[in-house]
């Protein structure tokens, strides 16, 4: 049996998933080191979201092992060390919670049962809101914000525990291009200035060239894992997507 590698925040070993006889993921091996900014791309149905859910222990595996911070995901309990921003949380516009209340709820798991958040909680909420540029919206109802602002509120919620690892699933869906640009700037700031390791699932191939440091291309199996510049040729992308793909760069 291999020893657990403590330097990796996430390690997948031979991870496979079958459902109703269909292969969803096939022997995925992947390591995410501290400080990485990993983009996971792939066509629809490639298993990107499933892979993220597997890392988070939300989806049982058929075979293989997931190691989070040196521990098997099944026994991992230190959830405050990571944050998760799911694919477009459908927020009811009538949900009666303020941005500050939603962000504070990110501390619930860390605070633990039968305990109050304590005096540091308000400061942590304020810092997280400042970091994502949402401090002036703190008392607004979260359901009334634009999609981009809601996404920022959810990131603040994920950041409030000062996690070492952030997992984002298609975070820019429904956000206008200008807000997207700001969003990726925020991710890069988190990665470079705050040493947050990022795993970003996206279908926006153009983003990955300029924003991420490493790239994983998934189509049920891992087609590529390495530096973006090694991969981002039209020919290689076409082989992944099975159709001609032309990359249009846009600045992030």
């Amino acid at each position, binding site marked *: 049996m291999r020893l657990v590698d403590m330097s990796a925040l996430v390690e997948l070993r031979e991870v496979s998933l079958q459902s109703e006889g269909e292969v969803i993921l096939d022997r995925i091996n992947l390591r995410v080191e501290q400080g990485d900014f990993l983009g996971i791309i792939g066509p629809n149905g490639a298993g990107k979201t499933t892979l993220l859910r597997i890392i*988070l222990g*939300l989806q049982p595996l058929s075979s293989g092992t997931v190691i989070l911070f040196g521990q098997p995901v099944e026994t991992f*309990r*230190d*959830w*405050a060390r*990571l944050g*998760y921003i*799911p694919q477009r*949380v459908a927020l*009811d*516009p*009538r*949900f*009666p*919670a*303020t941005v500050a*209340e*939603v962000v504070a*709820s*990110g501390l*619930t*798991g*860390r*605070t633990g*049962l*039968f305990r109050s*958040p304590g005096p540091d909680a308000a400061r942590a909420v304020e810092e997280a809101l400042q970091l994502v540029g949402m401090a002036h919206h703190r*008392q607004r*109802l979260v*359901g*009334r914000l634009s999609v981009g602002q809601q996404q920022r509120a959810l990131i603040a*919620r994920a950041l409030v525990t000062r996690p070492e690892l952030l997992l984002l699933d298609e975070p820019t869906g429904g956000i206008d291009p200008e807000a997207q640009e700001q969003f990726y700037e925020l991710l890069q700031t988190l990665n470079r200035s705050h040493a947050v390791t990022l795993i970003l699932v996206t279908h926006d191939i153009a983003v990955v060239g300029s924003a991420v440091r490493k790239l994983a291309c998934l189509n049920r199996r891992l087609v590529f894992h390495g530096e973006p510049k090694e991969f981002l040729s039209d020919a290689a992308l076409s082989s992944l997507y099975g159709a001609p793909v032309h990359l249009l760069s846009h600045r992030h």
Partner: protein
Amino acid sequence: MPEFLQYGFMLRALIAGLAVAAICPAIGLFLVLRRLSLIADTLAHVSLGGVALGLLLGFPPTLGALGVALVGAAGIERLRASGRLPGEAALAIFLSGGFAVAVVLLSFARGFNADLFAYLFGSLLTVSPLDLLLILGLGALVGGTVVLFYKELFAITFNEELARVAGIPVGAINLLLTLLTALTVVIAMRVVGILLVSAMLVIPTVTALQLSRSFRSALTLAVLFALAAVLGGLIAAYYLNLAAGGAIVLVALAFFAGVSLVSRGPAHQNA
């Protein structure tokens, strides 16, 4: 002291009613926002089986309702969590099944019509000192538990999956909420009756949701609307000789209608 409070039965009715008013929306808010309002109605119908058992076998029907509602709550949560049936279908099975069992049991227990009506439609004015103690005791238990688990209940209400990733024991908190609903239903049963229990959980909550500016304010407003409905309904029942349970629910509905008309709150703007 107002005239209607000079009678012991009215004072007991008022205290019991206000206790129920403070508890129902505190549970109702979480249920409504999670689209689980039907759970209260289901557990109320299931608990009728316990009432019937009590009437038939000669033990306090409220205790029967309590036992059956708690067992029903655990069963509902298990069926719902298994995902084998859509959530509402699981509730419909328990609602109709529980009610059917109660109807069959009651067919053996002829001559209990008056007692049965007290549970079906509420009998606030006949609350005994012992009933009052039970209502206050269970009410304190429900209220205290909501305060203790407020942050976990909020987290699962906002988003269950995010709560799970944050390390919150989602399954256990869901079960807790359903069990608290069962207790609340049994407490409220005495006040508004089995058939109107869910009204006390839902109507003040949806009234408050139209005005609230935060989760805490939604909770506070919902409790205030429920307290006002009980007070108004009880006074109307006393002076106009109406059924107290029905009068309370009608006052709550009047608040809802009034707020809906004048509200510029979230529901109004985004509906």
